[in-house]
């Protein structure tokens, strides 16, 4: 692998450069979903223990983000979306990212084990390994299913939050995992449709490159249907209720409509309006996940007052 990035030795990294290595935007999603998983669990933790659990899950996610930046420094330098990251822009060295990633991985797993339980710590260790090794190092540059497999790593936080509270995996935690797992591929395939030169230039085998754009549009439709089925199923478990069901029905109707608009149109139409539907699908899918988990949180917080849950 040829590295195109050189650390600018005249520049000393500032603290925020190290924070940027942890992918704070991804961490915010991890914090939110892990917190919801923890709050929705039938066993409640002391607020300090809950805070520690969410903090160390987020730290683990940050560690895997740093390891991802360490390995992908060469392709990050090519893609417009990623070339201002700390390593390609010369603000930090690859070694610093590796050191930070390894140190925080160990610290986060150890501390989650001590603060919550070793079952949750085991899941966190597996998630870091899965994202950094299985996805980043092994599959990302090898298979067009990269985003499907990689999506699993981002789907684990609510399950880890649940296990941190209860000590075991349940159908609810698996369904929360499955919802994010199914949500991830269409979200990134929509991005790949309108940011096409990025992935082409970096030679990442995205579905748009290997199977064509028409096939990608079909895949988005199929995954949107699976995602909708899972989202509605979650409503009928112990974490669901009327609030969640109402939000899930509305959001999934919008997603299915948006996915069908992407599926049914051709490239000429998409280019003519600068990928309007693909962009709106991408933007709405961020809100979609937030609203689903917010609804689960609302059910959990309102159930002591007889308002949430079934």
């Amino acid at each position, binding site marked *: 692998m040829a590295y195109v990035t050189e650390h600018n030795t005249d520049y*000393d990294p*500032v*603290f925020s450069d190290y924070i940027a290595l942890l992918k704070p935007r991804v961490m915010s999603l991890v914090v939110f979903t892990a917190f919801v998983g923890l709050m929705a669990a039938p066993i409640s933790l*002391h607020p300090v*223990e809950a805070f520690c659990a969410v903090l160390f899950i987020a730290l683990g996610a940050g560690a895997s983000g740093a390891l991802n930046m360490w390995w992908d420094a060469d392709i990050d330098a090519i893609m417009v979306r990623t070339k201002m990251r700390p390593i390609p822009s010369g603000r930090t060295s690859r070694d610093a990212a590796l050191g930070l990633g390894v140190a925080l991985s160990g610290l986060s797993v150890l501390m989650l084990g001590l603060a919550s339980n070793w079952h949750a710590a085991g899941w966190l260790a597996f998630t870091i390994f899965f994202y950094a090794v299985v996805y980043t190092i092994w599959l990302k540059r090898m298979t067009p299913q990269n985003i499907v497999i990689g999506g699993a790593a981002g789907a684990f936080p609510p399950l880890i939050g649940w296990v941190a509270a209860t000590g075991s995996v349940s159908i609810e935690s698996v369904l929360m995992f499955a919802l994010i797992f199914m949500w991830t591929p269409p979200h990134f395939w929509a991005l790949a449709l309108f940011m096409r030169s990025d992935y082409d230039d970096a030679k990442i085998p995205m579905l748009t490159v290997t199977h064509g754009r028409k096939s990608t549009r079909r895949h988005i439709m199929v995954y949107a249907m699976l995602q909708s089925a899972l989202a509605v199923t979650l409503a009928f478990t112990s974490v669901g209720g009327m609030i969640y069901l109402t939000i899930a029905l509305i959001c999934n109707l919008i997603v299915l409509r948006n996915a069908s608009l992407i599926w049914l149109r051709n490239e000429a139409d998409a280019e003519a309006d600068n990928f309007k539907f693909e962009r709106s699908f991408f933007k709405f899918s961020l809100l979609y996940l937030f609203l689903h988990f917010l609804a689960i949180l609302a059910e959990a917080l309102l159930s002591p007052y007889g308002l949430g849950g079934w």
Partner: protein
Amino acid sequence: MAIRVESEMHRRRRSQNFGVAICLVLFIFLMMGLSFVKLTNSGPVEGYDHAPRPSMEEIDLK
């Protein structure tokens, strides 16, 4: 050896060092809080001293 006047490197790395210091202090307080919660919320702690105790003996419910 006398303490040197602040060098140019210290000035450049101030942000880095300051950030690490804050993280370490917060970590210490977090560990103190967590230890306090764990100790106050756990049940009675008994160390094993190789001597039979009533709490270790099986109760015959028959």
